[in-house]
C-alpha cells in the first residue's frame, strides 16, 4: 500500500494508462482463450492416441502413449489429399468467380440508373434469406437435368450462385459510398465503363474485396451440404465430405477422425492468419456509411 503513495506524483499518468490495459483484460481473456482453445487441444490429444488406448480408457482420459497412427490412418490411401485438392480447387475457383461477377453487378447497380435496380438488389438479398435445405432437391434435379451432376464444376457453380447475392449486396453498399466526383473526373478524361471499373473501382474496393474473399474462402471451404447434394463420386468429394466419410455406420476410428479434422483445419487457419485484419473489417463492411 505504501509504495504507490511514495511515487504518486510522477508515476500517476503512467500507472493510469497501464491500469487501462491490464489486469482485467488478462484476468478475463486468459481463461476465455483457454476455454476457446480447449476443444482443439482435446482433438489434438485424441489424434495422438492409439485406437486401443481410446477404446480401453475412454475419450476423456489422458494419453497413455503418443503415436502418429491417427495421422498415418488419415493419409492412408491418399483419399484425404485428393479431397484437400478438390476443396482448394473449388474454393479458389469459387471465390474468384463469385467476387468477379458480384463486383461487376455491384458496380453496375451502384453507378448506373438501371431500371428496377433496387428490386434486383432486394431479390439478391432475399435469396440469401432462404435456407439452403429447401433448395437441395431442386438443385440436385437441375444439375442432373443439365448434365453437370457429379462434377466439381457443378459444385463451383452452386457456390458462386449462392454467394453472389450477399457479395453484391455488400459491394454495392461500399461502391455507392465512393465519391461521385471521381467518376465524373474519370468520365471527363474520356474513360469508359470498363476502364473506370478496372482502374478506379477495383483498386478502391480492395479492402472490401479482400474482406469478402477471406469470408468466402472459409464459407466455401467449410461447406458440406452442397458437396453432398451435387456430388456422388468419392474421388470428387471435398475435404468436408471426406471427413464425414471417415465415420463408420456403427464404429469410428476416433484417432483417425481427429487427425484428419486437424489436417482439414489447416488451410482455413492459414487463410485466417494471412487475412486476419480483413476478417475483422469484413465483419464491419457496409456498417460505416
Amino acid at each position, binding site marked *: 500500500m505504501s509504495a504507490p503513495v511514495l511515487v504518486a506524483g510522477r508515476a500517476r499518468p503512467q500507472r493510469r494508462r497501464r491500469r487501462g490495459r491490464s489486469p482485467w483484460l488478462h484476468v478475463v481473456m486468459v481463461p476465455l482463450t483457454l476455454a476457446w482453445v480447449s476443444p482443439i487441444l482435446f482433438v489434438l490429444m485424441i489424434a495422438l492416441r492409439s485406437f*486401443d488406448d481410446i477404446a*480401453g*480408457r*475412454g475419450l476423456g482420459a489422458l494419453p497413455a502413449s503418443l503415436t502418429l497412427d491417427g495421422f498415418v490412418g488419415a493419409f492412408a490411401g491418399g483419399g484425404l489429399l485428393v479431397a484437400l485438392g478438390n476443396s482448394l480447387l473449388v474454393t479458389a475457383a469459387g471465390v474468384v468467380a463469385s467476387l468477379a461477377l458480384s463486383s461487376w453487378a455491384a458496380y453496375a447497380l451502384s453507378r448506373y440508373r438501371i431500371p428496377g435496380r433496387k428490386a434486383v438488389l432486394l431479390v439478391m438479398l432475399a435469396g440469401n434469406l432462404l435456407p439452403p435445405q429447401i433448395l437441395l432437391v431442386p438443385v440436385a434435379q437441375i444439375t442432373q437435368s443439365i448434365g453437370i451432376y457429379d462434377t466439381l464444376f457443378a459444385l463451383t457453380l452452386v457456390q458462386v450462385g449462392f454467394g453472389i447475392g450477399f457479395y453484391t449486396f455488400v459491394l454495392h453498399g461500399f461502391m455507392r459510398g465512393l465519391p461521385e466526383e471521381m467518376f465524373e473526373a474519370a468520365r471527363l478524361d474520356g474513360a469508359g465503363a470498363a476502364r473506370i471499373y478496372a482502374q478506379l473501382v477495383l483498386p478502391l474496393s480492395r479492402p472490401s474485396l479482400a474482406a469478402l474473399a477471406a469470408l468466402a474462402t472459409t464459407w466455401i471451404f467449410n461447406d458440406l451440404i452442397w458437396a*453432398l447434394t451435387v456430388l*456422388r*463420386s468419392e474421388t470428387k468429394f471435398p475435404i468436408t*465430405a471426406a471427413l*464425414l466419410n471417415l465415420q463408420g455406420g456403427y*464404429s469410428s476410428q476416433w484417432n483417425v477422425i481427429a487427425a484428419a479434422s486437424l489436417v482439414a483445419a489447416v488451410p482455413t487457419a492459414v487463410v485466417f492468419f494471412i487475412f486476419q485484419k480483413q476478417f475483422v473489417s469484413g465483419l464491419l463492411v457496409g456498417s460505416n456509411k
Partner: protein
Amino acid sequence: MTTSLSRRGLLGAGAGLGAAGLLSSCVGSGGGGDAGGDASSGGGGPLVFQNSIQDTAPKAALEQIVAGYEREVTMNSVATEQFRAQLTNYLRASDPPDVISWYAGSVARAYAAEGLLLDVSDLWTGDGACAGFSEALRELSTAEDGKQIFVPTNYYWWSVFYKRSAFEKWGVEPPSTWDEFLALCENLSGQGVIPLANGIGPTPWMASGWFDYLDLRINGPEYHLALLAGEHSFTDPEVVDVMEQYERLIPYFDPNMASYDAQQAATPLAQDEAGMYLVGAFVSQYLPEDQRDDLDFFSVPVINDAVPTAEEAPTDGFFAASGTDDPEGTKAFLSYLASPEQQEAFITGAGSSNLPTSPEVDPSQFSPLVQKGLELLNSTERITQFFNRDSSDALQTTADAALTKFLSDPSQRDSVLQEWQAAAERVHGS
C-alpha cells in the same frame, strides 16, 4: 495414359453397339461373370458401386473384394447417414449408380414398390448366386410383387454381450431365465458395477434394441412385426407390458447413457465398469484388440414361454437401380459379391463378427464368437431385423423420440405411448 484412353475410345465407339448384342446373348447363363464382364468392359464404362459401409475394417475388406473383380468398378463410399438421406436421389437419378449397398426387408421393399429396384429374380433360381440361400433370406429379399430385389451377403446378430474375464472376476454366470437376469443386474449393482451399458445420446436408436427384444420375448415376433407394420397400436396393453419390463431395467442402465453414443458406451465395458451390453455383434470393433477374444454373449432370456423364440439379425447386402444401363453386368457383379468366396473374404477381412448368408461358406474357420452367433440364429424359431429395418426410418424416428422420453421419465409412460401412436399414425398415413 493417352494411348490407353484413345484405345478405349476406339473400342467404345466400335464395340458400343456390339456389346449390347453380346450382353443379351449372355442372359440366362446364370452367374455368368466371365462372359458378361468381358463383353461389357469394352462397351459401357465401369460399373458404379455406391457403398455405405464406412467402418474402417469392413470398408477395407470390401474395397479389396471390389478391386479383385475382373471388371473395372468405381466404388464410391459415402458416410452412412448422408447415404441414407441421398439414397432416393441416387435411385431416381437419370444415370443412377448400378449397385448400391443397403438393407434387406421393408426398406428395400418400399423402394421396389416405387419401381426403383432392379429385378434380380434370376439370381435366386437355377444355379444363381443366391439360389441356395435360406427361405428366411429369400422372403426378406422379396418385394410385394413376389420378385426378388435384394442380394443379401452378410448379417449379424444382437445379443447381450459381456466379457468372460469380468464375469469370472465378479463371480457371476450368464443367466438362463428372466428372473436370473434381473437378479444378476441386482447383484452387479450391489458390487458397484453398472449392470447394463447403453448409449442413446447421438445414437437414440440404441434404445429400440431393448424395446424390440422385450416385445419379442413378451408378445412374440408375430405381434412385434404387426405392431411395426401399424396393425396394432402402441397404446395396446401388450405394449404397456413391454414398457413395464423396460421400466424395471432403467435403474440398471449406465447413468451416462443419454450422453454416450453406441461406441462410447462400450468404454465402461472395456474398463470392467459395466457388465453387459445389449448390442449388435459390431460391438467387437468397439473394444481394444486384446479384449476381443474375451467377448462372449447370451441371448435375452425367455420371458413368456408361450411365444416362439426370435432373434434380431439385421441383414446387409446390395440392390441395384432399375435405371442401370447395364443390367447384365450389374447382375454379374452382384453374383460375384454374393459368392461364397467373397463372403468369406469379407467376413475374415472385416473382423466385425458378420455371418455369411451363403450356406456354402465353411464357418469352422471363423472365430468362436461368430460360430456361436451362427448357432444362435440356426436354433431360433424366427428371425427379425431391427426396429427401423422391420418398419421404416420414419417410424424409427418416432421410436427414438418416445423411448428417449420414456427412459428419462418413466412416470410419463402413458402419455408417451399416446404420442408415439399419434406419430406412428402420421407415418403410416403418409
